[in-house]
């Protein structure tokens, strides 16, 4: 009995070792490691279909696909990048989040790939610029989406309202909806990045995109009276009871339920909101540009760009180039646009079959004078965390919040973070 067990155990161990060795050897050959944050249902399906298409066409150099929860990925990626072997291709965000890795030499210069694939001509110049750091291109921007004021058409119509186009109209809309017993605007701030959208748009509408982006780049002061004005306007919205109470109790998807159930009318959100809206309500969902506050200011919009990059430690440069070329092709961007409604970054993607919402979104972005990424992508990670915390503190008690104290604390953070950056 004991002997049998031993023999069985030995065979099992031998098989296991053989599997590991074989896998290891073949992995060294041609495997392309792809690490992805597309964990939400819709994007995940699209992601898996993309890898399946590649693996079918390229059985000789298969992609090993691993998906990590979206929020966890943002933290785990740093260990991925210094691991051996590092993933060859990774999903990531344009802007400061990308610059962080480029500065530390963890991303590969992709200019040979851009050259080889002719991307300097086939990608919109603004997106090539977004991928550029110094001389090289380090990012493949494949899609973007817009932020806007989403609303339920039926609720607005039932109360004789249209989407507010100015600040006064926004406040009046809140008053009308409140009188009708409807929550004017829903928001879930348990994860406080949703509040940053309000800061971004208020700041761009009151002070203009130029001031906003300089603030993001830590070149303007948080105690500037222009930032104080942003909080004054923000507080007016609470004076008019525009927002859902206890917003910090809800994730953004949970707050969306109030809108799905018809209890709330509006939501300032990115277009991924439509991934989480039931089909029967999606037809009742419309969006407009965030209202104008100071008509003299240029119009800015948040339109975050997503994409891919190649780790500097990639052990399979050839494979990674080929896979990135595939991901960045017109065909794949077309698939992503058709399946998820994201907007393509290439100039040669056929947009004639796009939905009405997509066409409207493209118009929104194109009519804007300035395209920002988003608070936590435009500024540095440490500043983003401090800012989001301050916004959360403000909206947890907007009537009594010590705005000046919050801003002084943010200003201290900004000075310290800017100094740390300069010292690197």
């Amino acid at each position, binding site marked *: 009995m004991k002997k049998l067990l031993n023999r069985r155990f030995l065979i099992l161990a031998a098989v296991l070792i053989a599997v590991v060795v074989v896998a290891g050897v073949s992995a060294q050959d041609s495997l392309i490691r792809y690490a992805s944050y597309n964990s939400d249902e819709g994007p995940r399906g699209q992601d898996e279909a993309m890898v399946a298409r590649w693996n079918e066409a390229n059985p000789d150099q298969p992609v090993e696909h691993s998906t990590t929860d979206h929020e966890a990925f943002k933290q785990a990626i740093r260990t991925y990048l210094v691991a051996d072997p590092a993933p060859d291709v990774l999903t990531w965000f344009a802007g400061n989040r990308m610059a962080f890795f480029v500065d530390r030499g963890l991303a590969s210069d992709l200019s040979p790939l851009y050259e080889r694939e002719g991307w300097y001509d086939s990608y919109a110049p603004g997106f090539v610029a977004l991928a550029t750091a110094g001389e090289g291109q380090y990012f493949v921007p494949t899609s973007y989406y817009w932020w806007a004021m989403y609303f339920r058409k039926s609720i607005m119509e039932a109360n004789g309202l249209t989407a507010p186009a100015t600040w006064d109209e926004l406040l009046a809309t809140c008053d009308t909806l409140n009188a009708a017993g409807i929550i004017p605007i829903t928001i879930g701030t348990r994860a406080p990045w949703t509040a940053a959208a309000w800061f971004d748009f208020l700041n761009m509408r009151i002070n203009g995109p130029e001031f906003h982006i300089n603030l993001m780049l830590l070149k303007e002061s948080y105690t500037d009276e222009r930032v104080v004005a942003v909080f004054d306007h923000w507080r007016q919205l609470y004076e008019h009871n525009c927002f859902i109470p206890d*917003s910090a109790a809800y994730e953004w998807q949970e707050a969306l339920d109030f809108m799905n159930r018809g209890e709330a009318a509006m939501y300032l959100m990115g277009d991924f909101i439509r991934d989480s809206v039931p089909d029967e309500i999606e037809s009742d969902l419309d969006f407009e540009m965030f209202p104008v506050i100071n008509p003299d200011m240029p119009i800015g919009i948040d339109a975050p760009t997503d994409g891919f990059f190649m780790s500097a430690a990639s052990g399979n440069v050839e494979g990674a180039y080929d896979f990135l070329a595939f991901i960045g092709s017109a065909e794949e961007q077309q698939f992503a646009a058709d399946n998820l409604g994201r907007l393509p970054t290439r100039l040669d993607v056929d947009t004639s079959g796009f939905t009405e919402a997509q066409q409207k979104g493209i118009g929104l972005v194109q009519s804007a004078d300035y395209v920002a990424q988003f608070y936590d992508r435009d500024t540095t990670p440490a500043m983003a965390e401090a800012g989001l915390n301050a916004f959360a503190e403000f909206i947890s008690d907007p009537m009594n919040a010590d705005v000046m104290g919050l801003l002084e604390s943010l200003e201290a953070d900004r000075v310290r973070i800017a100094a740390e950056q300069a010292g690197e």
Partner: protein
Amino acid sequence: MTTISAAQRAAQGEGRMRINVTPYLFLLVPLAVYFVWIIFPTLFSIYLSFTNWDGISPIPAPNALSLDNYNRLFTDRDFGMSFGNNVKWMIVFLTVPTTVGLGLAMIFNTDIRGARWFKISFYAPLILSFVVIGTIWAWIYEPRAGLLNSIIVGISELLASIFPFVTPLERGPGWLADRNLALWSIMGAAVWRQCGYVMILYLAGLKNLDPSLIEAARVDGANGWQLFRRVIFPLLGPITTVVIVVSVIDSLRAFDLVQVMTRGGPGGASNVLANFMYIEAFNNYSFGYGASIAVVLLGLSLFIVVPYLYRTVKTELEY
């Protein structure tokens, strides 16, 4: 007794010699593991706390050390709030679950009907992971449709239907979304779990009490309170030590529930040191600053636990 031969003594001596060496040989491997996985990382964290390491770049050399992180700690509001919240947490943990747990143990140590069932019910939360507990309680605290507010609003409506001068509540408190309630709400969930834990510890202690001592006290005419105060509670001394140490450690390492239920929000109102450290190190890419928070947490734990352990071990050895 005085007739022990020299040979016997020698044999004893030899035995002692052997015993002196062998345990250390056996200990060699665990000690090596202990050094590699406990001592070294602790010392390394202390080293990191003097650097500005971002978790990616090469680890700064010893000539780049500075006290910047510690200077920043003293002016950082978030640190102050987290520290204060840990202190509140510890005060609650040292009073509420300890008292309730001891009370439960005293009640269920008797032969009342269904004692076993009650014990299991109170112990049950311990088999759940903190993440599950946090998720359950987050739903209980949900402001609109959560269990707690449904009950509060329901009662207010009931009262309003009976007494005309009562106006029913439109909605209950925001709990986790309310700056002033968030920390206490999380602690509610933590205490719920901790009570069962303390109860089990005390129940184990009560089972091991010498019944003859209690009988003796009864024969001497002690009433219930005197019996508890003068006999049972002193005899439970070693258990009380364990409970206090466990409570202090559990309150200092509080992290899971905060991370799951509020992530320290709204705006840092329910943050604790462990969560603050985690966010700084893993979210803000400031491993150096995170390490300095960890060092403060370590110092705090040692400051509280070591004197207590030292005193108890000493007194226990005197028995």
